[in-house]
């Protein structure tokens, strides 16, 4: 076997890796779960993260990392199955239920989560949060979006453009 030695001699059990958050909290997690991150996968394949070393993640705080790992641990078995083509309907329904509940969280946590998913290149998680954000904003009016984003009030010229748009695409505002 050409598998790299993890250095901790723990060959029988699942290989574990250590991740270190920006606030120096250490998280020990199965390599298979951490490998959902494309970024971490490369380091792990190189044999990193084992033993006392740990992989530092200076952009992710411990609250966010624990949330990210919760997602990875839940999704790792299905991902190991190559997107789980053999998964039963029950398994898929359970993952869907988990996902729905997982993103039912405060906006600031969603923000940290999508940034972390983006930095760590966890495609499924990024997509899940992006969908949630889209669902949260899809019903808003252009004015509500501007206010949410803290844009200044529209100038008379911009207001006229907004009104003209509303006249032209009235059905999209219903």
């Amino acid at each position, binding site marked *: 076997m050409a598998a790299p030695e993890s250095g901790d001699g723990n060959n029988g059990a699942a290989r574990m890796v250590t991740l270190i958050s920006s606030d120096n909290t250490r998280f020990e997690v199965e390599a298979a779960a951490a490998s959902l991150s494309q970024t971490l996968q490369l380091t792990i394949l190189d044999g990193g993260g084992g033993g006392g070393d740990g992989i530092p993640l200076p952009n992710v705080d411990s609250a966010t990392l624990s949330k990210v790992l919760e997602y990875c641990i839940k999704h790792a078995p299905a991902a190991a199955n190559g997107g789980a083509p053999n998964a039963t309907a029950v398994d898929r329904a359970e993952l869907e239920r988990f996902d729905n509940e997982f993103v039912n969280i405060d906006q600031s946590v969603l*923000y940290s989560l999508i*940034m972390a998913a*983006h930095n760590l290149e966890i495609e499924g998680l990024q997509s899940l949060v992006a969908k949630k*954000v*889209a669902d949260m904003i*899809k019903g808003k009016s252009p004015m509500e979006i501007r206010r949410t984003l*803290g844009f*200044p009030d529209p100038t008379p010229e*911009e207001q006229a453009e907004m009104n003209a748009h509303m006249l032209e695409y009235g059905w999209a505002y219903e």
Partner: protein
Amino acid sequence: MTTRNKKRTGVPSCCAQALPDELMTEVFLRLPIKSILRFRAVCRSWAAVLSSEEFCGLHMAKVEAVSAPPKLFFTSPTAGFDATSLYLGSSSSPDDGLLFTLKDVRGDFVDMTPAPCRGLTLLYDAVAPAYYVFNAATRAVIRLPPYQDVNFATAGLGFDAQTKEYKVVRLFIGDCLDKQHIKCEIYTLGEHGYKAKDHACGKGHSRIML
């Protein structure tokens, strides 16, 4: 909203705020068409992103990847018979699926291409006569420029992936001096008129598949 932040970028109190452009696009791609159209009015930079060729292509691919149940277009004359309404429906109550109404078009003389071509559908009004191209997702309709009316004409809509242009191809039989000579004209969407294509097709073909 009682508090209003005057700065354009600031603390991420909302997840839509201060997200990098790349992630904003990921969010936009998951919005329904109706929201995308509406959000083009948010500000000019959103309008630019949401109207860009690149974004529209990505969004279309995303929508197509999610297999939606097939829907049917159907036309119906309005009560006064002076206009035609176009519906997109799979539901039993047609009013839910109303896309738009074309004035001065008689519904019983309207024909359409059998399937949309990359989102667009060609519609033919035999009375005027006139061609229309519409986008069922955005409900945008344009009437094509007038053309020389002849008997025995047929038309189709195609998309040129290289130039990223939609083209309407008309085939018709030439005038008496030109008996049985099949002529071909191409109209590129966004341009002013048809261009004749000589020798683009052989004699004797009366249908074109696009």
